[in-house]
Each structure stands twice: as structure tokens, then as C-alpha cells.
């Protein structure tokens, strides 16, 4: 009897569900997702909605930075493009959200061509710095093109243009966002299994070798960029629909850094890692806030410094993860899985 999971064909190696066990667990998870909104309180639903959006954005960044190895500091900028485009399409052009979301995603993807054009010549860290420039230029445009973006005040989403079911309960929003998230996960998973996904990994591991193997580096980098910004555009779009309002403060550099943290903490270059990372990074500040608001009632001076302590903990977590757990949460998950697979004969 084989211990562990061996494959004898490429097809088996590429399958989404590697074992029947996985199918069972997926089914249980799916039921859990369906049942969750009926048992959870409104606060948990609110957090879960944020997690859904973050997962989509994080998948996008992971495709570009994790799979293709091009670290981008401009993800917040892409989220902003998606979000603002959605609001403008809905509020000014009067489109319905079902048209506006895909158009916003596509437009964000097209907008990424602006920087990918110049950044294809750049390698590694130079590329990263050029995306930093993109982030700042987008922020500037948002703040100063007031006719279009509303400047620092932002634009509220007109409530009569949004379908009824989104305006009401958090539960409806949850199902709406969850549907997008599941679609995004399946899409990203399939990309990672395809020739394109393998090409990304080849470029990340060694560009020269990938070129020697006959890959068109420029083409695949552009594809990675397009896909990443498409995901970001959709995530930005959903973020706005969830919040009902758009303002420049949701898209600054800190957001870009948070997305990078999701990728790093979750696990570089894995789909599961993006999900773990997004959950972790969204829930951590909420959990800390909960802890500190409890402590704050007994020690009032704490309430002044909550945000600072939060950031210190965040910084420490990044450092600790990168030093001691470079494979992220996904690596921990894999280790646990391996331990139980052969239990009790582990070594």
C-alpha cells in the first residue's frame, strides 16, 4: 500500500481534486459557506465580506508577484482604477452593475498596459520601483482631477442605481461577493494549472532559462500584468459596491503593502496561500481591535495608542514570518497535512 499520494500520469498530477478525500472536504466547506451567514452575527458577516474582496485582490497580486515573480507596489492603484471606474460608470453613465463590473475589470487591465509598456524593459527591483511611481501618480490623479473623481471628498454610489438585493442585508451582499470570490478562485486555480501558469513560474525562477526554453517572456509578463490588474479591478469594483462610497483614502500605499503582506504571509505562488493570507491580514486588525477595545475599558490610556500597537504587531508579524516561516501559512498547512497523513508513523 502506498503511503502518501503518488501520481503516475500528467493528468492526475494536474487534476483540481487530487484525491477523493479533497472532494469530500470541498463539499463540507461549500456547505459551511452556505450555512455561515445564517449562524454568524452581522459583525462576522461584515468581516467575511471584506475577506471575500481581499481574496480576489490577493489572487491577482499573487499571479503577478507570486507566480510570475514581479513584485508590484501598485496594487492599490489598480484597485483604485477599478473602483473609480465602476462608480463613474454607474453614477455618471447610468449603467447597471452587471455591465459596470466586467467593464471596470477590463478597463483596469487595459490601464495596466500603460505601465507594463515601460516596465517590460525593466527587471526585478527597477520594475518594483516603477510600480511605486504608478501608485503615487494614480493617487495624485484621484486627488486632483476633481470633476471626475470628486477629489478628497470622493463620490457616493447612487442608491437607486444599485439592485435592491445589495442595498439591504449583509447576507445578500455576502452571497453576491462569495459567488465572485469562488469564481475568482476557480479561475486563478485553472490559470495556475495551465501552460500560462507554468510559464509564469518559469519566468520567476530564472528568466534566462525560461527564454532558452522558448517562452516569449514579454508576452507572458504582459499576460501576468493583465490578469493581475483584472482581478484588482474586479476587487476594487466589489469593494465600492460593498461600501457604497468611494474615497481616496482606501487606495493609498498602505493598501498596496497590505496586499503584499497577504501574499507573503499566505504563501508565495500558491492559490491556497492567497486565501489564507487574505483571511489573516483582514482578520488580524479586527481581532486586535476587539482585544484592545476590551482592554481599553479597563486601561483607558490604551485606546489612544491602539493603531500604533496594531502597526507594531503587524510589522513584527511580517518580520517573524519572513525569517522563520518563508513559505507562509500555506507552508504550515502543508506540514500539518503531511504530519497527519502518515500518523502515527511520522519521522
Amino acid at each position, binding site marked *: 500500500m502506498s503511503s502518501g499520494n503518488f501520481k503516475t500520469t500528467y493528468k492526475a498530477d494536474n487534476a483540481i481534486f487530487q484525491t477523493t478525500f479533497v472532494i469530500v472536504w470541498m463539499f463540507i466547506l461549500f456547505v459551511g459557506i452556505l450555512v455561515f451567514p445564517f449562524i454568524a452575527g452581522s459583525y462576522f458577516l461584515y468581516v467575511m465580506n471584506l475577506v471575500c474582496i481581499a481574496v480576489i485582490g490577493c489572487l491577482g497580486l499573487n499571479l503577478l508577484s507570486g507566480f510570475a515573480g514581479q513584485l508590484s507596489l501598485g496594487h492599490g492603484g489598480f484597485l483604485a482604477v477599478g473602483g473609480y471606474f465602476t462608480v463613474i460608470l454607474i453614477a455618471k453613465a447610468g449603467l447597471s452593475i452587471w455591465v459596470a463590473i466586467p467593464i471596470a475589470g477590463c478597463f483596469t487591465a487595459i490601464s495596466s498596459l500603460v505601465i507594463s509598456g515601460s516596465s517590460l524593459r525593466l527587471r526585478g527591483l527597477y520594475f*518594483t520601483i*516603477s510600480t511605486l511611481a504608478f501608485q*503615487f501618480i494614480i493617487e*495624485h490623479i484621484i486627488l486632483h482631477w476633481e470633476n471626475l473623481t470628486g477629489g478628497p471628498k470622493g463620490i457616493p454610489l447612487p442608491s437607486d442605481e444599485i439592485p435592491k438585493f445589495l442595498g439591504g442585508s449583509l447576507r445578500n451582499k455576502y452571497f453576491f461577493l462569495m459567488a465572485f470570490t469562488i469564481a475568482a478562485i476557480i479561475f486563478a486555480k485553472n490559470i495556475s494549472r495551465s501552460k500560462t501558469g507554468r510559464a509564469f513560474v518559469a519566468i520567476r525562477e530564472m528568466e534566462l532559462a525560461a*527564454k532558452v526554453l522558448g517562452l516569449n517572456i514579454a508576452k507572458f509578463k504582459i499576460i501576468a500584468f493583465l490578469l493581475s490588474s483584472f482581478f484588482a479591478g474586479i476587487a476594487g469594483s466589489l469593494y465600492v459596491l460593498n461600501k457604497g462610497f468611494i474615497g481616496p483614502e482606501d487606495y493609498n500605499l498602505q493598501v498596496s503593502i497590505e496586499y503584499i503582506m497577504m501574499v*507573503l504571509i499566505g504563501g508565495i505562488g500558491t492559490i491556497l496561500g492567497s486565501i489564507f493570507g487574505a483571511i489573516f491580514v483582514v482578520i488580524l486588525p479586527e481581532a486586535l481591535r476587539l482585544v484592545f477595545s476590551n482592554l481599553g475599558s479597563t486601561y483607558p490610556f490604551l485606546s489612544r495608542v491602539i493603531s500604533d*500597537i496594531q502597526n507594531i504587531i503587524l510589522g513584527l508579524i*511580517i518580520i517573524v514570518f519572513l525569517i522563520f516561516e*518563508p513559505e507562509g501559512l500555506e507552508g504550515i498547512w502543508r506540514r500539518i497535512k503531511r504530519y497527519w497523513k502518515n500518523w502515527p508513523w511520522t519521522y
Partner: protein
Amino acid sequence: MGQGVFQMFIQILISGFAVGTIYALVAVGFVLIYKGSRVLNFAQGELMLCGAYICFSLITQFHLNYGLAFFLTLIFSALLGFITEFTILRPMVGKPLFSIFAITFGLGFLLKSSVALIWTHETYPFPGPEFLSSPSNGAIYQFISKLNITTIIAGSILLAFFLVFFKYSKVGLAMRSTANNQYAALLMGIKVRRIFGITWAISYIVAAIGGILIAWMTALCPTLSFIGLKAFPIAVLGGMESIPGAILGGLIIGVIENIAAGYLDQVLGGGIKEVTAYVILVLVLMVKPYGFFGREEIERL
């Protein structure tokens, strides 16, 4: 009309040079670390913050005189540099650049929030020496502020000192050889680990000086660390690995920023100053991807 326009231009130029000197100091620290250990330091602005706040505390709380406070700040900064290198960067040796770059985000969060925790988010005026703070003789020739001139002179002396240090001192030579080829440097008996520590210490020191000068010119608050992000466009302009390039890049960006703020703000609506550096960055990357002093990396198939 002519006189006024000319005066304004000179004013803009001088304050541009003053800011440029500070940028140059920040960028030199940044380039030093990149050159020495291939680490892109995202936390350069936070290093700056640490130095400025330490100096501020020494002056206002411990009532030391300026020279002593400045000297002690440099020592503390160097210590912080060694500690940072030993605890955070040392374990990352050999890891992918992606991770090392990202760990400096963590460092940035940590330093900035610690500073905010200790000194709160309030804005303090930075106490300058007597002869500069009295308003009656705050300017030479009505339109050139003494503060700017002092900043330029102080910054230039320090930058010249560092250039000479790298060029002629034994430690400077060891640092340059380590940057050039780590293994060869090891074989020559250079203690590469110690050199990495010294690199970070000097980077902290340079950043602290920049921080003190900028806090002195404006005011002291945690958001000052945003200046550290300017180090990226400046370093790219200078070619990432060249210290003279970083100095020149800092001056160029400082001056262009001020000119843009002075002349374009009315046309394009405020806030141009903040993005000028990044627009220049994009343009430079399009025309000369390795900056003005950078070494082009050529790969052969």
C-alpha cells in the same frame, strides 16, 4: 516685474537646493545599503525619523547642547543600525530578494509606530541653534533664508565627508570591495559580516542627519517618513549603485520639485510637488533604464 520674478526664481532655486541636500543624504543611505547588500530599503524614511526624534529628545528633555546632542544621536543611530542588521537582516542572508525587500516593510512599520508610540503623533517645532531662530536676522538679502543656506552648507560638508570616507578610509575601501564582490572580499580577509553591520550603521547615521535637517526646516512629526520614499526615484536617477549619482539625483529632484511647485501649481492645481519625483522616475526609466551613473547589466545568450 523683472526684479520680482528673478527674486522668486532665486528663492525657489535655493530652497530647492536645501531640500535637495536632504534628499541626497537620504538617498546616499539608501544606495549604500543597496550597493553593499542588494537590499532595497523601504524603511529609509523611518530610519530618518528615529534619528530626528532621538536628537529632539536629547535637546528638549535632557537639555544637552546642540553639539553633544548631535554627537550622541549619531552614536545611538549607529547602534540601532548594528542592531537592525544583526536581528533582522542577518537571518535573511541567502533568501530571495523579494522577501528581503518585504522585510523592510516590516521594519518600517515597526520603527514608525514605535516612534509614534513613544513621542505621539503630535507635531513639534524642532529647536534650532540661537542665531537661526531669531526672526530679525532670519534672512540674508531679504529673500534668501538663512536656514536654507545653513542646511545646504551643513549637508554639503557632511556629504563631502562621506565621499572622502568611502574613497580613502580603510573601512570605506573594505565596503567598496564587499559591494563589488563579496566572495573576493571574504578571501582578502575582509570581515564581510562586520562590513554589513557598518553599512547599516552608516546608513542610519546619514539618515539621522537628513532627518534632523528636514525636521529643522519644517517640523517634527511621524509623517516625515514619507520623504524616505523619495529615495527610490533619486536612487534610480543616479543609477542605484553610485553615491555621487545619488547626491546629484537628490539635488536635481529637489530643485525640479520646487520649480514645479513654484510655477506649475497655478496651472495644474496644487500638489504637483509630491508627484514630480515619480513622473521624473517614469521618464528616466523609459529613456535610460539604468539611470545616469548605473552599470548596464548585459546578458548574453
